[in-house]
C-alpha cells in the first residue's frame, strides 16, 4: 500500500507536478538576445499549467537556439552541460528542456540519447537511505523527472536495455521509483513490441512509393491470393502524369470482374486514408454495387441443418462438399454488403488522370474492363492532373518550426 502511494500522488497530482516544477528557471547561458519569442511561449504555457500568475525569470534554453539540429549537436550539448561544473546545477530542468526538444533534433526514437540524459544525473546521490525514504519517494523532483523521461520513451516506443537498468540502479538505488517504472516497462514493452498482425519494417522507409506498397499489401491481406503490382503510367501513351500506381488485385477479384454485368457501372471511389505509422496514404477502390440478387439468394438459402439425408459424395475431380454449397457459389470476401471491391490502388499523384491510367493498365489483365463503364465518385476534391507546385518563399523550412511556434 505504501508503495502505491507515490503512484496515486502522481496520478492525482497536477498539484504534485506543479510543486516539483515551480522552481525558478535558471539561466544556463548568457545569450539573452535570441529567441525571445520562444521564451515567451514557454512562459505562457508554464503559467497556464501552473496556474500561478507569478512571473518567473525566463530560462535560457540551449536546445531552442541550436543552429544545427542533429543528434551530434544534441549529444554535444548534453556533454557541455555535464562538463561545465562539478555540481551540475539544474540538471532536472536541463533534462526537461532536453526532452521537450527531442523531436526537433529527430532523436526521439534514439535510445542512446535517453541514456545520455539519464547519465546527467549524479550517481549515488539520490539513493534512499531507508525504507521510509524509498516508499515515500524521496528526491521527488529528480525521480519524477526520470519517470517522465521513461514515460516519453514509452510513448515513442523506445525500448530500454539492461545498461539503462544499471544506470538507474546507480542513480536511484534498488528501491528507486524510476527503476520500478523501468521494470514495468521491461515487462510490457517486449510483449507489445511484436503484437501487430501487420508488422512494419523498422525504420519505416521514407519513400512514398514504399509506404504505398506497404499500405496496399496490408489491405490485401484479406485475400491471400492478392497480387500487388507497381505500374508506371509512362507505359501508356496518353497519360498526362508520369507517376507510379500501386495496384492490388486477386484472381478472385478478376473472376468477379469477369462475371460482372456489363450494363452496371463500376466506381472509382476515394480518396480514403490509411495511416502507416505516422504517414498518411490516400488510396482508391474500384467498386461495383453489391450483387443484391446473389446476396439475397444466400440469405434465402434457408437450409435445414438437421436434415442429414442429402449428403453428396464426390468422385474424382469434384470439390469436397460444403454444407451451403451443394449447388451454387460461395460468397467471397470481396462481396461485401455495400459493394463488391474489384481492386484497390494508391497512385503517386492521386489525380484523376493517374486513376484513369490505372484502369487502362488493369485492362491488360482484365480485358472485360474495357466494356464496363467506369465512373468517378470522390469523397473530396481530386485534381484532374498533377500540377507543378513552386515552393513559396515563406514556407517554413521544417515542420518542427511550425509545431514549436504553436506550442
Amino acid at each position, binding site marked *: 500500500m505504501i508503495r502505491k502511494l507515490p503512484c496515486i500522488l502522481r496520478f492525482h497530482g497536477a498539484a504534485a507536478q506543479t510543486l516539483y516544477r515551480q522552481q525558478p528557471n535558471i539561466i544556463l547561458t548568457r545569450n539573452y538576445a535570441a529567441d525571445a519569442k520562444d521564451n515567451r511561449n514557454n512562459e505562457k504555457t508554464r503559467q497556464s499549467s501552473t496556474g500561478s500568475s507569478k512571473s518567473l525569470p525566463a530560462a535560457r534554453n540551449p536546445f531552442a537556439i541550436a543552429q544545427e539540429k542533429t543528434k551530434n549537436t544534441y549529444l554535444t550539448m548534453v556533454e557541455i552541460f555535464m562538463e561545465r561544473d562539478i555540481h551540475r546545477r539544474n540538471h532536472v530542468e536541463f533534462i526537461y528542456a532536453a526532452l521537450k526538444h527531442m523531436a526537433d533534433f529527430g532523436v526521439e526514437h534514439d535510445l542512446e540519447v535517453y541514456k545520455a540524459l539519464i547519465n546527467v544525473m549524479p550517481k549515488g546521490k539520490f539513493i534512499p537511505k531507508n525504507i521510509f525514504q524509498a516508499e515515500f519517494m524521496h528526491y521527488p523532483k529528480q525521480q519524477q523527472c526520470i519517470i517522465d523521461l521513461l514515460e516519453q520513451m514509452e510513448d515513442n516506443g523506445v525500448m530500454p536495455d539492461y545498461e539503462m537498468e544499471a544506470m538507474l540502479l546507480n542513480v536511484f538505488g534498488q528501491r528507486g521509483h524510476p527503476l520500478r517504472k523501468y521494470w514495468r516497462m521491461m515487462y510490457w514493452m517486449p510483449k507489445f513490441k511484436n503484437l501487430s498482425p501487420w508488422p512494419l519494417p523498422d525504420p519505416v522507409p521514407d519513400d512514398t512509393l514504399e509506404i504505398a506498397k506497404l499500405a496496399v499489401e496490408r489491405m490485401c491481406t484479406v485475400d491471400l491470393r492478392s497480387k500487388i503490382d507497381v505500374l508506371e503510367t509512362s507505359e501508356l501513351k496518353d497519360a498526362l502524369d508520369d507517376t507510379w500506381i500501386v495496384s492490388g488485385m486477386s484472381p478472385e477479384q478478376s473472376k468477379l470482374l469477369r462475371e460482372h454485368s456489363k450494363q452496371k457501372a463500376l466506381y472509382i471511389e476515394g480518396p480514403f486514408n490509411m495511416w502507416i505509422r505516422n504517414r498518411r496514404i490516400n488510396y482508391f477502390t474500384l467498386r461495383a454495387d453489391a450483387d443484391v440478387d446473389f446476396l439475397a439468394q444466400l440469405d434465402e438459402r434457408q437450409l435445414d441443418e438437421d436434415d442429414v439425408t442429402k449428403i453428396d*459424395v464426390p468422385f474424382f*475431380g*469434384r470439390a*469436397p462438399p460444403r454444407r451451403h454449397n451443394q449447388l451454387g457459389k460461395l460468397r467471397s470476401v470481396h462481396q461485401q454488403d455495400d459493394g463488391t471491391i474489384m481492386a484497390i490502388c494508391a497512385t503517386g499523384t492521386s489525380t484523376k488522370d493517374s486513376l484513369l491510367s490505372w484502369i487502362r493498365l488493369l485492362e491488360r489483365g482484365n480485358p472485360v474492363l474495357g466494356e464496363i463503364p467506369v465512373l468517378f465518385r470522390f469523397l473530396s476534391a481530386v485534381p484532374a492532373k498533377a500540377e507543378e507546385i513552386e515552393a513559396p518563399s515563406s514556407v517554413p523550412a521544417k515542420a518542427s518550426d511550425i509545431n514549436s511556434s504553436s506550442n
Partner: protein
Amino acid sequence: MRCKLLPRALKLLTQTRCASNKATRVSSSNSNVKAHQSENQMPEEAPTAEQQLTAREPLVKNFFVGVMDKELLGFPEVIPREEMANLQNTLLPLKNYFVEQVSPKQAWNDLKQLRLFGLNVPTDYEGSGYNWSASLMASEPECNVTSVGLALQTHRVVVDMLCELGTVEQQQRYLPALASGQLMGTEAIFEYTPPEEDIFGAQATYDMAASRWVLNGEKAFVVVAPGEARQLFLVLAQTQAANLPGPAGVGCSIFLVDSQQKGVRLGEEHSSFGCREVPMRRVHFDNVQLEEQQMIGLAHNGNKYAEQLVRSSRLRSSLLGISLSKQLLNQLTSFSIDTRQGGAQIQDLELTRVHLSQMMCSIYAMESMLYLTAGMLDEFAGQDVTLESAITKYYTMRETYNIATLSMGILGPKSLHSGQPLEQGLRDAAQLVTQGESPSTLSLFIALSGLQHAGQLMNAGVRKARNPLFNPGHIFGKFLSTDSIEQPKIRGILTENLHPTLEASAQCIEHSVARLHMAVDLMFTRHGNAVVEKQHEMQRLANIASNIYAMWASAARASRSYCIGLPLADHELLTASAVCNQGRDEVTRLAMEIYNGNYMNNDNNLLRLANQVTKSRGYFPVHPLTFNF
C-alpha cells in the same frame, strides 16, 4: 463350426453339379428358400450360367448404422473346385515365369504369349472369362513385377468397364482386340493441373450436324505401353448438357479413344519416382472426332458410372500393393535371418520381430479384404461394394507405404542405396500410393459414403437429438441408456459365425462397430449436415471403418482356414486375433477422439494454427535465438 452358410453351400453344390452337367435335386429338408429357388430356376443345360444370389445389404455401409450382416462372415468360395484346379494349373507357368527376376522389357514382349491380356474378357470374345476373384488371382503372378502389373491392371480396368457398361456393339468392336493384346487399354482420367472451377480440363462438345463428339484437352499420368502397341484410352471428359445451361448442366462422360485416331498425340513422358519401367505420359487431344459409339453409357452421366470405374481400379490396384508388400516382407525376413550384427542375429531382436509380424498382419488383412470384396461381387448380383473396394485400396496403400518405410529402419542407409531391391520397393510403393486417387481423397470418400448411407437411416433420430426441447423423451432415453463409447453394449451375435477361438475377436469387431455407430450418431448430432465440412473427423471415421473391415475380413478368412484345416491355419487364427486386437485399440482411440470433440482432441488448436501458417505463407516462428531487446 456353426456357420450359417447353408445358402452358400447349396450354391457351391449346384455349381459343381452344373459344371459336370449332372444337376440333381438337393434333398435337404431345411434348405434355404432362396437357394432352392435359384437352384430350381437354373437351366440345367447351361453349365456356365451365372449363379449369383440376390444382393445383400451393403456390409460396411451398414457398419455406420451399427448393423452387421453375420452371414458375410463366411469367407466366400466363389471359384468352384474344378475351376480352381484348372486355374492353378494355368497359373503355374505364369508363376514360374515371373518368379525369376525378369526384366520388364523382356516381359512386355512375352505378355501376349502368356495370354495375360484377356483374363477378364468373356469367353465369347476370346478371353479367359474369369470372374473378379479368379481374374485377381490370375493376375497375382504378373504383379511380382510392379511396373508390368501396373500397366496390365489399368488394361483390365478398361476391359471391366466395357464388360459392365459397354453395348454389345462396343464389346464386339473392342474386346477381341483387347483380349489378344493388339489393343492395350489405359485409363486417362487425371490431369496435371486440375482446373479451378470445372471438373476436368479435357472437354468434349457435341456437334449436332455431324452427330459427333469433339474432344479437346490433355490428360496426364497415362500409363503407356512401351513399343508401338495400339492403345485404347478411357477418357473422362467434361460435357455440358444442351438443355441445361450453367453449372447445373455440367457433367462428365466417358469416351473410348483410339490412340491412332486423328488428333491424339502422346506428350512428354513423366520422369516419375517409382515404376520407372512403365512409361507414364501426357496425352493431348486436339479436336478428336468421336463417334457416338465411342461413348460408354449415357452422356453427362459419367459420375454415375464413375462408381463402377473406381471400384474396378481400386480393387485391381490393391492387388499391386499386396504383391509389393509380400515381396518386401519376404526380402526383409531373409535379410534378418541371414544377417548377424554385433553377435546377435537380427531375427532374434524383439523390435525386428514385432515389425515383421506387424507387416505380416497388415498383409493378411489386405489380402483378406481384397478377396472378400471380390467374392461378394461374384457371389451376389449387383452387390454394393463401393465402400469395401475403397477401404481395400485405402488400407492397402497406407500399409504398403508403411511397410516400405519400416524397411528403412531395419536395413538402415542400405535400404536407400540405388539398385537394392528394397530401394526399388520403396519407390514403387510411393508411386502406387499416388497413383489414381490419393489416400486423403479416398478417406473422405469412405467417410462421406458411410455418412450418406447412415444419414438416410438415422435422420429421424438426428432431428430429435438436435432439437432436445421439442423431444424431451428422446433425450431422457439417451440419458438413461448405459451404453457408452468406452464400453458399448454388445449382443454377441457374431461369435456363433466364427470359430470359437475367435470369440474375443468377434467381440472386438462388435465393440468397434458399436463405437463407429455411436461416433456417427455423435457427429450428426453435433454438426447436423455441416458434418461434411468436418474433414478431420471424417478421416477418423474412415480409419475406423477401414480398421473394422480389416478385422472382419481377417477373422472371416482365419475362421474358414482353420475349419477346413489349411496349412498353418493356427497361425492364421493368431494373425486374425492380432489384427482384431490392434484394430480395436485403434478404433477405441479414434472414437474417443471424436467423442471428446475439437477442444479436447487438439483439432481446434490445429485449425487455429493453420490460419497463421497460411497468412505467413509457411513456417512462421522466428529463429529460437532471436533477441527482442
